[in-house]
């Protein structure tokens, strides 16, 4: 018997361990001294400190709190009145409406998100026609013709998905409400409105409060719906976190996730404790008539209530505060010049944004997205209303081909002259009319010197049985196919179907022989830093981040050659803030900005001054000399670049073939 209970306790413990281990790990590593998620470097609060200095995170936190609070308040009011309306209906109608109300909660968030996005975009299109017509028939008011996704749409979306939760928690309270109580209030001289205010509302208040708390939690928690409705000028915390994971899961994310987890945990705890207390109260209420003296003694210990005027005043101040901040925020948005930038996570030294804002007075809405493909789909749906984007080379040529980019005004970008010759007029933009390069880098193989017998020199290592189960392959078709094409000696940009099929066959064969441990993107950091895999193909700049946590790692650009890539700034067609965008591009192209970015992200700069000055800059900053080998990995020397090739956009049929081959491989 005893043994049994020990066993069941152990089992319970295991279940909870299984449930919570990942989160515990995340919390532990949020206190890590260094920036690894595998190697423990001692306790520190660094990442929390950094968190509060990270303006992107702080701004998105502000957005999240504002949208959650406003959405909660509005949804609570709307939901409560809806619940009262439902309550007054006939039973059959009410049941139908309740079911209708429940559907959005069951519905997949992604469906709700996409549907909302489509709805807003369709509405904006309709609005544009209406506004144009309206402005043409009268001159009194000028209606804005161009509406975009942004804070208002985000707010509307949040209100929409919050209302069902409020309804769900208020309705039962109403059903429990003694109908006689309303009659009693009317009987005692209340008008209908007074009865609502003085009796119904206080009676259903517990339901309203827990509804509001649930709504608030849902709002804070939401990612998918926000992702599709926030547009370019605002992003919530979870969107920012997701964008940051593009590069790697930094301990900063651990820190913010820990805080988010604790917040949601607290909210849930409050909701549950409230409910438990109410149940107990209800039980006592039932028991009261039977056991009068016992019950009479108990409730005396309740906390004395604050006078009601105080509570009202506090609520009033809170409301005004929220509304005022919202109003000020909206006002700022309309008056201050703005530029909307979309880039990758951890792809800029954020002090540059502050500096730019101080120098020019232009507010930067800095958004991140996780991949070229994600950016493309956002732009296609019409959800990405950005001015400046920073896509990679092959995506740029595709965007140009589809007429989605605006030509740049190079007169406003004097710093373009600092861009090295070798980074101009590249195949994706042959006449250099659309782009200013942001960074460049190479692709190579990262390997763990303790786990391989001899230095890796060939792409063959990616397909070699010798390292079966120890190899990490790209989880994106273009990069993965490139490794095979290079090994086979074919052109990176080949459109020859036979060559492509052969390359895909090579990967499929290696996969079937168990060469690959996994197909990964940023998970490569964890695996390589922790010594869990021997070989992985990835980007040079990221190798330098990884080697900080595991000095056994090495990097090579194989002898067959490789891909070198450029990410460049471009401006979207009809960008609403064109001149501001030019100012931003010029600022980022400056030598100082390039030096700081290069130091921050360890991707090479296309600015020839910055490229030259970086070793000296590094020395001045860290008081140690920059290792030549490291520098060569950041900025590959010309003889290495000569072996490398950049991607160009592939014709449609080849893209389709890529897709088909990739799907056949059965990854993802």
């Amino acid at each position, binding site marked *: 018997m005893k043994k049994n209970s020990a066993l069941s306790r152990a089992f319970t413990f295991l279940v909870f361990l299984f449930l919570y281990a990942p989160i515990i790990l995340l919390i532990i590593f949020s206190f890590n001294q260094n920036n690894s998620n595998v190697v423990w470097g001692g306790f520190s609060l660094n990442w929390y400190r950094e968190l509060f200095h990270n303006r992107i995170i702080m701004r998105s936190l502000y957005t999240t709190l504002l949208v959650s609070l406003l959405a909660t308040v509005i949804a609570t009011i709307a939901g409560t009145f809806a619940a009262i309306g439902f309550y007054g209906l006939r039973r059959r109608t009410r049941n139908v409406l309740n079911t209708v109300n429940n559907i959005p909660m069951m519905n997949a968030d992604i469906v709700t998100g996409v549907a909302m996005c489509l709805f807003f975009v369709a509405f904006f299109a309709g609005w544009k026609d209406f506004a144009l017509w309206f402005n043409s028939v009268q001159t009194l008011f000028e209606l804005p013709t161009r509406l975009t996704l942004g804070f208002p749409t985000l707010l509307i979306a949040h209100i929409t998905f919050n209302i069902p939760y409020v309804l769900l928690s208020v309705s039962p309270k109403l059903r429990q409400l003694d109908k006689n109580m309303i009659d009693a209030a*009317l009987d005692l001289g209340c*008008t209908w409105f007074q009865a609502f205010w003085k009796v119904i509302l206080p009676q259903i208040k517990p339901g309203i409060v827990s509804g509001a708390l649930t709504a608030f939690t849902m709002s804070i928690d939401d990612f998918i719906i926000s992702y599709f409705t926030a547009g370019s000028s605002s992003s919530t915390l979870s969107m920012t976190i997701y964008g940051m994971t593009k590069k790697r899961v930094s301990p900063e994310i651990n820190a913010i996730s820990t805080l988010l987890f604790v917040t949601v945990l607290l909210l849930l705890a409050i909701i549950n404790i409230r409910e438990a207390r109410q149940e107990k109260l209800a039980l006592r209420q039932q028991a009261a008539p039977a056991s009068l003296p016992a019950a009479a003694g108990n409730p005396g210990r309740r906390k004395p209530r604050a006078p009601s005027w105080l509570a009202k005043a506090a609520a009033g101040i809170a409301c005004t505060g929220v509304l005022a901040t919202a109003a000020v925020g909206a006002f700022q948005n309309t008056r201050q010049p703005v530029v909307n930038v979309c880039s990758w996570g951890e792809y800029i030294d954020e002090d540059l944004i502050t500096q730019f804002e101080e120098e020019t007075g232009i507010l930067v809405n800095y958004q991140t997205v996780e991949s070229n493909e994600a950016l493309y789909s956002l732009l296609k749906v019409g959800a990405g209303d950005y001015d400046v984007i920073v896509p990679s080379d092959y995506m740029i040529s595709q965007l140009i081909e589809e007429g989605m980019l605006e030509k740049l005004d190079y007169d406003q970008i004097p710093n373009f002259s600092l861009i090295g010759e070798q980074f101009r007029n590249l195949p994706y933009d042959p006449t250099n009319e659309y782009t200013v390069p942001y960074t460049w880098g190479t692709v190579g193989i990262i390997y763990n010197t303790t786990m391989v017998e001899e230095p890796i020199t060939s792409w063959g290592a990616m397909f070699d049985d010798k390292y079966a189960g120890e190899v990490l392959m790209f989880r994106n078709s273009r990069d993965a196919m490139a490794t095979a094409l290079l090994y086979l000696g074919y052109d990176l940009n080949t459109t020859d179907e036979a060559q492509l099929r052969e390359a895909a066959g090579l990967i499929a064969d290696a996969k079937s022989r168990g060469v690959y441990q996994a197909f990964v993107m940023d998970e490569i950091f964890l695996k390589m830093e922790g010594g869990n895999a021997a070989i992985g193909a990835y980007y040079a700049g990221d190798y330098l981040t990884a080697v900080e946590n595991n000095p056994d790692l090495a990097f090579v650009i194989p002898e067959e050659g490789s891909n070198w890539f450029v990410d460049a700034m471009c401006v979207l067609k009809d960008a609403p803030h064109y001149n501001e965008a030019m100012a931003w591009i010029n600022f980022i192209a400056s030598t100082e900005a390039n030096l700081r970015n290069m130091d921050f992200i360890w991707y090479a700069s296309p600015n020839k001054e910055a490229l030259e000055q970086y070793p000296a800059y590094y020395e001045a900053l860290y008081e140690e000399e920059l290792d030549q080998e490291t520098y060569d990995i950041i900025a590959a020397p010309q003889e290495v670049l000569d072996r490398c090739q950049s991607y160009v956009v592939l014709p449609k049929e080849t893209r389709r073939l890529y897709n088909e081959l990739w799907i056949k491989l059965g990854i993802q």
Partner: protein
Amino acid sequence: MSKELIRLSDCVVRFDDEIILDHLNLYINDKEFLTLLGPSGCGKTTTLRIIGGFLTPTSGDVFFDGQRCTDVPPHKRRVNTVFQRYALFTHLNIFENVAFGLRIAKTPEDEIARRVEEALELVNLPGYGKRRVESLSGGQQQRVAIARAIVNRPQVLLLDEPLAALDLKLRKDMQVELKRIQREVGITFVYVTHDQEEALTMSDTVVVMDKGNIQQIGTPEDIYNEPKNAFVADFIGESNIIDGIMLEDKVVKMYGKKFPCLDGGFAQGEPVDVVIRPEDIDIVPVDQGQITGTVTEVTFKGMHYDIIVDFQGFKWLIQTTDYSPEGARIGVKIDPDGIHIMRKSRYSGMFGDYSSYSEAYDELNVDADAVTEGSDE
């Protein structure tokens, strides 16, 4: 008698196709304790809600002090209600509950304090103001509900089965209490109940209702001693209701035998319902009995025995202090004032038999049944 305060004139209430109140006419006098008595679904609560203003009759009118007030909303009527399950505001303490109506009326604060304390004293709960609702017992909560209504000094207090949720002992105490309160404040009470004992104990006037109709209005004594039909006779107390034929004034024929009684004014040979209360029957030796029967069941009730006696297949209930064993043959004697004669109504034959189905009874009543159907209203 004092002056008329409320009049319901030809009130009809219909939900969908169901008639809840069927052309009801009722007047209520000032300072009267009037009880609406009837089984559930008889329309008594509906009547109360019409008076309270919570319900507008489908047709018909309500007059208050001679003024038509059919459409006046509850908060404009000088009427307050005590609800069945108290309906106290659980988010307020006792003081605030009682003060609720005064606050709505914007009464000055010192007057509120004074009147609330008076009201709580009236219901024997002085000093309970700070308590929370759920800390009180059911009886105390009901007193608070009364105080909450009375503190507004209404002209009429409506009480909707206020004691139904209390246990028997508490209910008896509260009956006395309510009567005392009514005397002290001197206003009209309209009381709804399905408990006939409650109705008889407290009321000045009892209104017996069934199926949306008033069956009888009268003092408790009238209602008990002179029920108008089998429904009333059965609903108020216990009754043996036997088919009889009026031979002439003051003589009724049952079981083929003549019984002297005090009623008259019926046609000669008119079939009637004869009501005999169980306590009005004397048990006598067989040879002295007007009729004789066999005891089939004896139940000890404390103050008396309930005896079921079979008279030719029709079973009577007799309440007596004399013990008769089961199976004994007994004779009974009924004094003329113990016999009450009622005209046949649509309730005839539905009440007043304490037996289960019996063939002998059926045969015995074949003739009477034919007559009854013919004379049905």
